[in-house]
């Protein structure tokens, strides 16, 4: 049995996008929602079938999971080897991502039926969701790096459209622009990198690139530039694209602002799927990274580690619940990047497996957190936790599922976050002790800020609400419950059996010497949060005061945004754009205006030649002949 049917997985949402986008306005809004949701249900089902068939029936040959091209169409052929295809390629990480994307997208589709009810542009929202799902699935199954790049830009566009969904709100517009510009800037690096890589290797194809022969060709390329080989530069530039999409420091600034979009969008795009595209990209090219330029993996590991610490610290000071979650996302993606960075290959590929494992568990519990936050915001109409408190009575289901998600992210066994985080910490321990201790500290911080959030929202002092908050409708709570179940049990999947850097199943084990301390520090974080936020006390304020300048710096996210503004507004605008604009206005336009003036003037003059007198015409005619004769017959010959 072949996998040809899998081409429908990306195609269906594309058709849904066309259908809803073109005809949505002719029906009641709810029709668009239901059509989109049913379509996503079909895709989810197909993804499960694909996963079953791949992992248990057809995927493995001689004990190795193969890269299977289910269908491919040559779109542009440059040379025999260098051609851009559009197709579907299945391998363990692609199949895993298919599952993650379709499940979360399906949940978000159901959830939005309730959350977005009555919003203006309801069917537009579903059209954009379908467009995003199409782009993301196309990215995941890409057979070659150029197809990936095309879909990469498409997810960027759909993210832009969805962040700016409330286009009459200036902050949403600004946020969507910021997200687009920052990621687009990073994508420029990706494009240059992939062109460089294809120049070196003569192919775009992932299967060829990551095969042993492909690796040999890449290794053979002797080009160097500024002390590093051209391949290293190419891979780092490609990573730059990944860092932009996955919001790694210093390209992280767009993600917190992206929370201006509707909350289901934050859950789908900015927590579970699109933002991990950068991790997926590195994982996709992992054999090239590890075999050809292991030094660039070090860069990746440190950027990931730094981002996770940096974001966790900021998360402890934020009051907007979606922003806390956004910084938490940054921090968790940092974990995944770090895990890839510290991974070895084959037998030593624990980090790779751990990264992918954490990617899937994180997708479930972070989507759950965001959807829960959406339910809270839905109930109290505010984003700020100081306007909440004591909500556990009013929102029992949301409370319970949110608690589960918080425990999961804090790494409390036996919930899924524990298992994946444990593997990452173990991988870090074997590779680099410094990185291990950073992540160890982040584990504590994570537990602290998540429970700071949890206690302030559901416990603490009850704020006076304008109207009694009430639990969300079933369309919203059912996805919460399903995701909670997934968050609890996803950890029991023997992930190493399915996903590994070389396709050969590896047996995972629990590392007690690491698990015990990391659980302990997680519990410690929870305990501190419990003491500080269980009841309303003055302790947090006093601590903030005591930390003084440091607290303010953290609260303002280390002023990174201000630095960017300074660089763009003060330096680029004033020192580069203004002179260029002046040059354009005065020299370029000025020259053109002068030319136009000369034309106008000479036109006025020459018109007077045309007198209307036939005699004059005859004189001109004869004179013309004479001049030609004199010039050409006598002077030139």
């Amino acid at each position, binding site marked *: 049995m072949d996998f040809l049917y899998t081409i429908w997985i990306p195609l269906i949402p594309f058709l849904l996008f066309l259908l809803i986008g073109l005809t949505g306005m002719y029906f009641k809004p709810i029709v668009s929602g239901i059509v989109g949701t049913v379509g996503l249900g079909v895709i989810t089902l197909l993804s499960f079938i694909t996963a079953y068939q791949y992992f248990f029936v057809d995927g493995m040959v001689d004990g190795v999971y193969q890269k299977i091209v289910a269908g491919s169409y040559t779109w542009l052929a440059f040379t025999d080897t260098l051609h851009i295809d559009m197709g579907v390629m299945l391998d363990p990480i692609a199949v895993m991502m298919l599952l993650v994307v379709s499940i979360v997208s399906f949940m978000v589709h159901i959830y939005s039926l309730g959350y977005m009810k009555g919003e203006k542009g309801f069917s537009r929202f579903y059209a954009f969701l379908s467009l995003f799902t199409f782009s993301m699935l196309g990215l995941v199954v890409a057979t070659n790096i150029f197809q990936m790049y095309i879909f990469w830009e498409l997810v960027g566009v759909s993210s832009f459209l969805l962040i700016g969904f409330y286009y009459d709100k200036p902050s949403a517009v600004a946020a969507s622009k910021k997200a687009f510009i920052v990621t687009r800037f990073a994508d420029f690096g990706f494009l240059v990198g992939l062109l460089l890589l294809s120049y070196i290797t003569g192919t775009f194809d992932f299967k060829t690139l990551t095969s042993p022969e492909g690796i040999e060709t890449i290794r053979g390329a002797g080009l160097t530039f500024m002390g590093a080989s051209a391949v290293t530069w190419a891979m780092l530039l490609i990573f730059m694209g990944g860092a932009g999409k996955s919001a790694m420091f210093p390209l992280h600034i767009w993600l917190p602002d992206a929370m201006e979009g509707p909350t289901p969008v934050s859950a789908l795009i900015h927590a579970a799927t699109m933002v991990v595209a950068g991790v997926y990209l590195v994982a996709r090219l992992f054999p090239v990274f590890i075999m050809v330029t292991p030094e660039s993996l070090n860069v990746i590991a440190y950027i990931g580690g730094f981002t996770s610490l940096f974001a966790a610290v900021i998360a402890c000071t934020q009051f907007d619940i979606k922003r806390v979650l956004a910084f938490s996302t940054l921090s968790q993606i940092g974990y995944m990047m770090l895990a890839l960075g510290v991974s070895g290959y084959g037998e030593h590929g624990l980090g790779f497996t751990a990264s992918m494992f954490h990617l899937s568990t994180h997708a479930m519990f972070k989507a759950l957190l965001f959807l829960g936050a959406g339910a809270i915001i839905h109930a109290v109409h505010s984003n700020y936790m100081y306007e909440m408190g004591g909500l556990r009575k009013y929102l029992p289901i949301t409370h319970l599922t949110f608690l589960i998600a918080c425990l999961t992210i804090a790494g409390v066994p036996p919930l899924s976050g524990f298992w994946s985080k444990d593997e990452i910490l173990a991988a870090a321990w074997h590779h680099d002790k410094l990185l291990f201790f950073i992540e160890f500290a982040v584990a504590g911080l994570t537990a602290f800020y998540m429970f700071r959030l949890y206690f302030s929202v559901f416990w603490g002092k009850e704020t006076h609400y304008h109207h009694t908050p009430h639990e969300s409708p079933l369309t919203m709570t059912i996805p919460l419950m399903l995701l909670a179940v997934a968050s609890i049990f996803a950890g029991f999947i023997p992930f190493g059996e399915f996903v590994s850097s070389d396709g050969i199943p590896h047996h995972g084990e629990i590392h007690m010497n690491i698990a015990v301390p990391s659980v302990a520090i997680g519990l410690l974080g929870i305990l501190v949060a419990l003491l500080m936020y269980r009841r309303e006390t003055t302790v947090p304020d006093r601590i903030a005061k005591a930390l003084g300048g440091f607290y303010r710096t953290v609260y303002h996210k280390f002023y990174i945004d201000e630095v960017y503004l300074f660089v763009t507004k003060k330096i680029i605008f004033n020192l580069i754009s203004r002179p260029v604009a002046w040059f354009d206005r005065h020299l370029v336009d000025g020259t053109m205006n002068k030319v136009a003036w000369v034309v106008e003037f000479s*036109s006025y003059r020459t018109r007077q030649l045309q007198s209307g007198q036939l005699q004059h015409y005859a004189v001109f*005619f004869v004179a013309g002949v004479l001049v030609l004769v004199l010039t050409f017959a006598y002077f030139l010959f």
Partner: protein
Amino acid sequence: MDLSQFFIMRHEVLLLAVIILILLMEIFVGKANRKAIIPVSIGLFLLSTLAGFLPAESGQLFGDMYRTNGLIVSMKNILNIGVLIVMLLSAEWLRKEENLDKVSEYYLIMLSTLVGMFYMISSGDFLMFYLGLELASIPMAALAAYDKFRNSSAEAGIKFIFSSALSSGVLLYGLSMIYASTGSIYFTEVAAHMGEQPLQVLGFIFFLAGMGFKISLVPFHFWTADVYEGAPISVTSYLSVISKGAAIFIFSIVLFSVFPMLEPLWQELLYVLAILTMTLANLFAVRQNNIKRFLAFSSIAQAGFILLGIMGGPHLGLTTVVYFILVYVFTNLGAFGVAISISDKTGKENINDYNGLYKTNPMLSLTMMLALFSLAGIPPVAGFFGKFFLFTSAASKGYYILVLIAVLNATISLYYYLRVVKAMFIEKSDHPIAPFRSSLSTRMALALCVAGTFAVGFISWIYEYLYDMTYLLFIF
């Protein structure tokens, strides 16, 4: 010579038959039914046009005075299409009361000049060439003066006949020098004996000046604007498209088949004339307000661009020139068609009168816009390809500076073409031209122009066919 050979001249024979039938109608159709002459004439001409597309043989007649081949047949077909469009466009104007008396006159004169052009294109010696040329010119003066009670029309006729006489005189003088120095008037023999003697060069320059008048190259162009403005607008369209096209056809054929020896000379001459023509015509066109004068100068500028094509050598040169004329027939007649239609309904012929036209007559405005874009050479319409091939042709011989100047001129021309577009689409007017519905024949003609403007650009085999035809011509 037997009868089958006689039919090598199919185009001319059919056209003569049409002319005779129209003459008979003129005699036998009563006063009440004169309007019927119009559709019947158009129908007859349509038949002869269609018959022109039947497969044709190459060959020669009358001891090589007359010759024909695939490329010449294509040229005649292009002219036929153009004349058909002109006939459709002028039907509404002819139906007017004051013109009904002389309907058949219009057709007779016009088709006679066409016969002249056909013989001119097919000529194999200078005698036939000159006869064809005069047959194409002298009746034209009558056509320009068709509105004989209108002063400007009469003036146009007089100006045309005098200027034409002067240019024919110069041309004939040049031909006599060539005859004197080579001893023959047959193209093949002249080509064999042509050298660079001063008398021959002088004769050639006179010939070129005479042709420059027909094609209206600067500085032999002065008659153009006055005649174009004075003549009835349908006649103007005929003059600017059909007779100019025919003159360019024979001019390029003669240059390549009779004067290849003088190629270095005429390359330089054309270089200078092309720059003069493009630049001066553009400078004139920028300031025109009358749409007919405006189109006159635009057509002079287009002639300058055509010279660039000729400079690319026999093969590429002929192909690009014929292709460009085909494009030019559709686009320029499209622009004229809109102007004719508006002039017929309202009598308005100034660019200012077009203000706000889009609001009242959107279809006409869009057609005009398309035609102007094509004239300016904006992709994807055919005019872009036409101009592109002309420039390629000149660039293939290394005339990069000339191409650069041409591109600058194309930019200037864009300015004045867009002026008309701006008037139609952007300018507001208190008294815009009222909405009206053109007659069926006008609409058919405009539809043909629009279709041609797109089709010629997109259907690649047209260019390839012409390319093959010219190739066959020069392999012997």
